[in-house]
């Protein structure tokens, strides 16, 4: 469903992504790991069509982001890292806007979809509130609601559980896992238990390159008995505290 081939991105002289390749299929939940500044968000932004790559290609269900951006954007739900929205809009106004902009125009369908994501993301309590008055965690949930609203076949979630309380983290993981059956999901995270809990595959990027691409089981088997964050540290810490 998503094919990423040798994606590169430079910001001026800084090479943020230095050739990332992977393919994921329906049913997979890919955990995208790596230290701060590794290039996770940049890679995700290129797959969604927000940033154009310096070189390389990204395809979603066969559509190249660069030549068919609209086709790709229709099929992708994206939660940006900033989970930005429009502060003066209420949650319902905002979600209605996203639904309409995604081409859902029938009133019944809009209210069905909204009702569905509001329940899934536990937004009932705040649905009439303007987004600027929401706490960080609720804003994050609005961002998630917006990403799954059109039931996309590909979900790209940049740190979806960031800022959520432990109960919500659990709920959101359950939600993601529940949707995985007929979607391809890429999520970035710094929480390594999350990978064990829901991911079917792990990719670790470091300094713009893929250093690990395997199943969580194989990943743990690299060092039997060790905790997953120990292995992470060994793989990505080479030059930090040398």
């Amino acid at each position, binding site marked *: 469903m998503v094919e990423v081939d040798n994606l590169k991105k430079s910001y001026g002289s800084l090479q943020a992504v230095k050739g990332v390749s992977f393919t994921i299929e329906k049913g997979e939940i890919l955990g995208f790991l790596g230290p701060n500044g590794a290039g996770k968000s940049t890679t995700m932004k290129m797959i969604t069509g927000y940033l154009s790559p310096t070189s390389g290609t990204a395809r979603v269900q066969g559509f190249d982001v660069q030549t068919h951006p*609209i086709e790709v954007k229709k099929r992708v739900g*994206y939660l940006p890292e900033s989970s930005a929205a429009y502060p003066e809009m209420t949650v319902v106004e905002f979600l209605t806007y996203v639904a309409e902009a995604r081409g859902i125009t029938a009133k019944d369908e809009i209210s069905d979809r909204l009702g569905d994501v509001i329940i899934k993301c536990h937004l009932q309590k705040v649905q009439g509130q303007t987004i600027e008055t929401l706490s960080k965690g609720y804003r994050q949930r609005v961002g998630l609601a917006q990403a799954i609203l059109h039931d996309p076949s590909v979900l790209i979630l940049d740190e979806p559980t960031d800022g959520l309380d432990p109960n919500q983290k659990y709920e959101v993981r359950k939600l993601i896992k529940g949707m995985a059956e007929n979607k391809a999901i890429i999520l970035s995270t710094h929480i390594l238990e999350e990978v064990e809990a829901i991911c079917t595959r792990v990719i670790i990027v470091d300094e713009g390159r893929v250093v690990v691409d395997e199943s969580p089981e194989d990943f743990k088997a690299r060092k039997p008995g060790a905790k997953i964050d120990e292995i992470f540290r060994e793989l990505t810490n080479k030059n930090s505290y040398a």
Partner: protein
Amino acid sequence: MNTLLPILKKEFLGYFRSPVGYVILAVFHLLAVGLAFFSGYYRSNQASLDIFFSFVPWIFLFFIPATGMRLWAEENRSGSIELLMTLPISISSAVIAKFLAAWGFIGIALGLTFSLAITTGYLGDPDWGKIISGYFACLLIAGSFLSISSLCSAMTKNQVIAFVISVLICFFATVLGSQFLASLVNKLPTAIANVVSNFSYLIHFQTMTRGLIELAALSFFLTTTAAFLAINIIILKR
């Protein structure tokens, strides 16, 4: 078209979701009607809006950039641009939708000043053709200024910078045809002076408020608007 509408609606209503829109409307109205009033609109015994129209470009110089500055700068600053650019909407639709929303807002501001025209019609017997073409000219010059403001707004994440730069550009474009510049231009060969005044917002505007809908003026405003919007689209495509 149906991808344009949701953004247009959201942007247009956005002006009324915070006090900013109301403040801009009120200030514009007070300035326009107030200036017309104090400079002898009611004393001149002429049943026309000439005095009002003569102020419009100068008020627009500030009012239009104030309306347009938020269009893109706000999205750039808050990061919501990322959301907008990952919706299945082409960049050109987004640019046009935002432009139309702001233009509609300006249309409302202009519409509110129609009270002046109605009073004029009540007190005298104005040339309605001239008034209509005058309002038409206002809409056109507003569109052109707005395309400049939208472009400036797309280039920064700071609304204040967008405002200042677009006021400067609009000011320069306007004075190209003013008396002040004309006196400078006098020293230039006539051919050059003519070329310069072809690019003058003020001269084309004045032609229309005199009641003449000239093709040159019409095409000038429409072309400049389209050109600035096209640059706006190119810039956002990065």
